[in-house]
Structure formats: C-alpha cells, structure tokens
C-alpha cells in the first residue's frame, strides 16, 4: 500500500511537469501573446518592449526560459508576477482560494446531503410517482446550464434585482473570518445554484448504483438473515453503491476548487474562477497560467486520493 502511494505520488509529479510544459508552451510560444508587448501597454516603444523582454528573460533561448519557469515554480513556489495587479501570482491565488473553497465545500455538502437521499428514495420507490417526479426534476437540473440557473435564481430571489427579496444578491460575498453570518447568507444562493446540477447527477447516480446492487445475491443473503429492509439498504446496499460515487465526488470537488468559473462569475464571488476570468480580460497571462496549474494540481491530487480511498472502500482492490 505504501509502495503504491509513493509510486502514485511520483506519477503525480511527472504528470504535473507535463502540465507545466503544456501551459508553458501554450502561453509562451504561441505568437499571439507576447507578455512583453502586453506589459508595455498601448504606447510601448520597441525600446521599452526590448527592456521588458530582457526583464522577463524572454531574450533567453526557449529551453532556458522553460527551465527557469519550472525552477521557479517547483523550488520557490513562484508562479510569476502579475503585471496588472503588480503582485506575485501565488499570493493572488492564495487570497482567492478561501472564497472558492467556501463555495465548493458548501455546494458539495449540499449536493451530497440532498442528492444521495433522493437517489436512495428513488431507488426504493422505483417506478412510483415519487421516483418519476424526482428523476424528472433531476433531468431538468442536469440539463440546466449553471449560468442560466444562476441568473434566474438572482432574478427571482436576490434582494436587489429579485422578485422576492430572500437572499443577498450578486457581489455580496464576505469572507468567513470577516463576518461568518454574512458569509453564510451571501453563499446560500450560489451554493444552491452550483449544487443543483450535481445534486441531480448524484441522485441519478445513487439510484442507478443502488438498484444494481440491490439485485446482487449478497443482498438476498442480508434479507434472509432477517435484517430489516432499512438496514439491508443502508448498510449492505449503500456500502457497495457508494464506491462509484467516491470517484465522481473526488474529481468534482477538485474541478470546482480550480475555480467555479461560471458561478463565481454570475454571483461575482472573488474566487479563483473570477480571478481567472478577469485575468483573461486583462490579458494577464501569468495569472491564467497560475490558475490552470493550481487547478491541475487539485485534479492530480484528487485522483491520487480517490485511488487510495478505493483501497479502503473495497477490500478486493489491492495495489501491489
């Protein structure tokens, strides 16, 4: 097991270097974006551009630039410098992380707490009106794009532009440490919107997974033992049905930690996604690079965690 984890981590590092190489190539080598020109501004003279190029090390051969880039990231945790904010990118991302983290964790909590029970009930009450209603609703939410859902939610419930002034609207985000109550209030609507699709997906996933498991022989054994149907489902059924959920959950959370771009955009939440959108608007390449890298790291780490979790969830999985 330990050997497996070490091997897996090493592969993660290899993968990370590959991602760094790809981002480097996309942002440094494509002719449309020359950081020096962007940085020099509209009236940048060739002389200024040349100076900036020298400053940024753009006059070195590509492999030297790549080496410096990798060295900075890995050895110094230095993701570069944003010319727009005049701040190190690493610090900017770190500042935005709490908002993204708040949004993601809250939404994930919500979609698990709602989606899983709905899935279980749908599976138990299969083909009843309740099941069909739940799955029909789920289909609507699976199909609804989050930016559309977000705008509708604001239009209906936001306390500024909404028809019913229930929740704080866009741009109301406050840090948890600043004011926990306002933090909670401001995130309620984004949580619901962000979790809507996932709730629906998880409900469908749990339903399908549980239905499949309930047909297994060992469920018949559990019933023949004299277990109550409740324990048959929740203990024996869900124990197996939960496994595919873990894969999806790990990757979903990791994906959102890289920036819930649409939700953060609609609700104007200062998270990594928002930082990314703004950076694209400003042509702030180093930030985009930084956020892409951070998002990749989250995905790589989540993959490793999911694999490790599998070994604990299913004793048949042995990584030797």
């Amino acid at each position, binding site marked *: 097991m330990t050997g497996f984890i070490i091997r897996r981590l090493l592969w993660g590092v290899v993968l990370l270097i590959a991602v760094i190489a790809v981002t480097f190539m996309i942002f440094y080598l494509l002719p449309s974006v020359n950081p020096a020109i962007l940085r020099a501004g509209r009236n940048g003279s060739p002389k200024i551009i040349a100076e900036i190029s020298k400053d940024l090390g753009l006059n070195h051969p590509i492999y030297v630039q790549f080496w410096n880039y990798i060295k900075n990231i890995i050895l110094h945790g230095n993701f570069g410098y944003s010319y727009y904010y005049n701040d190190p990118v690493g610090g900017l991302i770190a500042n935005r992380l709490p908002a993204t983290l708040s949004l993601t964790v809250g939404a994930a909590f919500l979609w698990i707490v709602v989606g899983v029970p709905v899935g279980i009930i749908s599976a138990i009450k299969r083909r009843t009106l309740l099941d069909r209603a739940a799955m029909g609703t789920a289909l609507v939410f699976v199909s609804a794009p989050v930016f559309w859902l977000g705008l509708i939610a604001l239009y209906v419930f936001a306390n500024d532009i909404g028809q019913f002034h229930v929740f704080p609207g866009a741009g109301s985000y406050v840090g948890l440490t600043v004011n926990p109550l306002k933090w909670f209030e401001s995130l309620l609507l984004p949580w619901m919107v962000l979790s809507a699709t996932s709730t629906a997906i998880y409900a469908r996933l749990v339903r399908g997974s549980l239905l499949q498991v309930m047909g*297994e*022989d*060992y469920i*018949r*054994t*559990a*019933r*023949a*033992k*004299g*277990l*109550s*149907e409740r324990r048959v489902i929740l203990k*024996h059924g869900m*124990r*197996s049905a939960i496994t595919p959920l873990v894969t999806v959950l790990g990757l979903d959370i990791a994906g959102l930690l890289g920036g819930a771009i649409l939700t953060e955009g609609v609700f104007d939440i200062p998270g990594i996604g928002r930082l990314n959108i703004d950076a694209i608007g400003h042509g702030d390449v180093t930030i985009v690079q930084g956020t892409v890298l951070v998002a990749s790291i989250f995905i790589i780490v989540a993959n490793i965690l999911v694999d490790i979790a599998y070994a604990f*969830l*299913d*004793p*048949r999985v042995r990584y030797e």
Partner: protein
Amino acid sequence: MSTEQPAGALLSVENLSVQFPTHDGVVHAVDGISYTVDRAASIGIVGESGSGKTVAALTLLGLTVTQGAIVTGQILFDGRDLLTISKAELRHIRGNEIAMIFQDPLSSLHPQFRVGAQIVEAMRIHRSITRAAARTRAIELLELVGIPDPRRRVDQYPHEFSGGMRQRAMIAMSLSNEPKLLIADEPTTALDVTVQAQILALLERLRHELGMAMIMITHDLGVVAQIADRINVMYAGRIVESAEARPLFSSPQHPYTWGLLRSIPTLDGPRGVELLPIPGRPPSMIRRPTGCFFHPRCAYALPSHSTIDPPLSDVGLEGGGDHRAACLLDAAQRQAAWAALKGGGTPEQARVAAGIEQDVVPVAEAEIVG
C-alpha cells in the same frame, strides 16, 4: 385457516402458489404445491432450472413478495402461518428459525465486509449478545464447518476464501442461530465435484448433530440421494412425484423422474447404458401446455394426455409408503416402461414394453402446441 399441524411436522406447505404478474402475462412460478417437513427430517426438492423450486423456497422466507409476487396457500411453520404473520414476526423467523444457503457462495457473501463480521451480524440481529461473545462464537462456528485456522480466517474478506470455503462460511452463518430448518438452494452446484461431496457430507453431519430439518433444493438427483429422507420432484411449478428416497430411486413412477434418472451418470449402473437427455425445454410458465404439463416432452404421451390434467395421486405400490405421482399412465404401463428403461432400453423400447405403441403425439409437434 387453521394452524393445526400434524404431530411431528415442522413445516407444512399447503397448496402454495406463487405468481408474478409481468407485461407478457402472469408467470405461474409455483402452482399449488403441498409438502410436509418433519422435525429433524430432510427432504429434497428436485427439478430443472425454472421448475419453480427456488421461488418456492424463497417464498417460505417471504423473499418473493418484495419482488411483486402474488402468493396464495398456506405455509405453516411451527404453528404459525408464514403468509399471514406480520413482517416483524417473519423477520424474526428469517435467519433465526429458518436459515438459507444459496447456490453461488462467490456472490452470496458481501464482498466488502469481513466474513466474521457477517456471521456476527447474523447473530446480533436475533439475540442480545456482545460483539466479543459473538465473535468467539463465530470462530467456533467456522471451526465447526471445517475451516482451518478460524482465528485468522474470521477477519478475512470473502475474496480471500476459496469457493468451497465460502460455502462453508455461509453454512456457518446460517447455523449461527441454531435454526430449526435449513433451506439449501443448490448449495453445491457452483463447486468442484470433490468439494461438492465435502459440503454434502458436512451438511449431513451438521444436520444430525444439531437436529435440524433440511430442505435440499437441487437439479441433481445424485445430490439428494445421499441426504434426503423424502424427495419431491418438481416440474413447471408443480410437484409431479413425491416419495421416500428409496422407492423413488427403485421404482420411480413419473416419466419426468425417469428422464432425470436416466440423465445422470452412475458408476454402479449397467454398462453401456447411454445417458439420455430429456428432449425439449421446460415449458413457458406464462402460457403453459394444456393437459399434463409434461406431455410435450413425454415419450409416452397419448393424444388424450394433452387435454387431461393429472392430479398428484397415490400410485398404490405395496410397501412403497406414501408414494404419489401425477401421471396418466396406468400402474402396469409405468412398471413395464421403467423396467425396460432400467435395463438400458431406449424410450422407444420402453414404450413398446408398456404397450403404448401407436397414436403417440410426436415430441416435436407437441412442443409447438406447448
């Protein structure tokens, strides 16, 4: 309905029918079967796949109703009708007074729980016993069913057990509450022949040691020959022959039973006797044949057999005990036919011997009718 049971009877099944409504029509999985299991006795229920034997057994535990089955009749167990008692009462009987083991030990244990934990759970559902005490008992049970090194094995997962070991573990689990009745549904079918023999011997030993009754469900007459006191042969959801084990093997009375006997290889039978498969397939349980359900596959069927439905009635053999069969042939015909078959004759020769020469419904044609 009365809940009076004959003295000595543990389980009395009366006119039990199980139907599953489907889009294609009603599946008559079990059609009015009756049998009795005495305390500490063992019976065999024998039939092909799809004869309704497993459904009948699962129904005893109330495990078919959850699948939408319509169950009628009466199942008296120790003075209670299992079809009318509450769910809670039935659950108290399941795994406690009636335990069941299944065909495929590979898939019957939960792959994600330790073997010991599954046995402990079975105990703790039905009795107040500490986890530690239940674990100690689980180790004893594993030892009882012949699992070596039970102290180590108790903490292993099912995938770390071989097929035979898993069936032993299932047996250990089923015995954990000292049931009065053990239902074994094809317990050896998925196992190697040598392991089969071990498991059968184990079941037989445990049954005697613990004084429990057993229902052995199988498609293999060879299996029940060793351990059943009485055998019910099922075909298309009905019992077509019912007898003590000895007379059933020495003078079987139903052509289907003949077919089953002639399709199993024996070491001590006459040399050069060909194994004869029963032609055709079991009938649709939705659109069943008219008359005798077996007539489309029966080598001895007369035209009238496609219209008359034979009741299960006493065959009137002397010294044969309670021996019943549902066959339209008369006793002399049956005796002559079986004598010819036993001597290695083909069904055609047996038919001649029994004096059934002409007007036989050709098997292939009858199948279309069925």
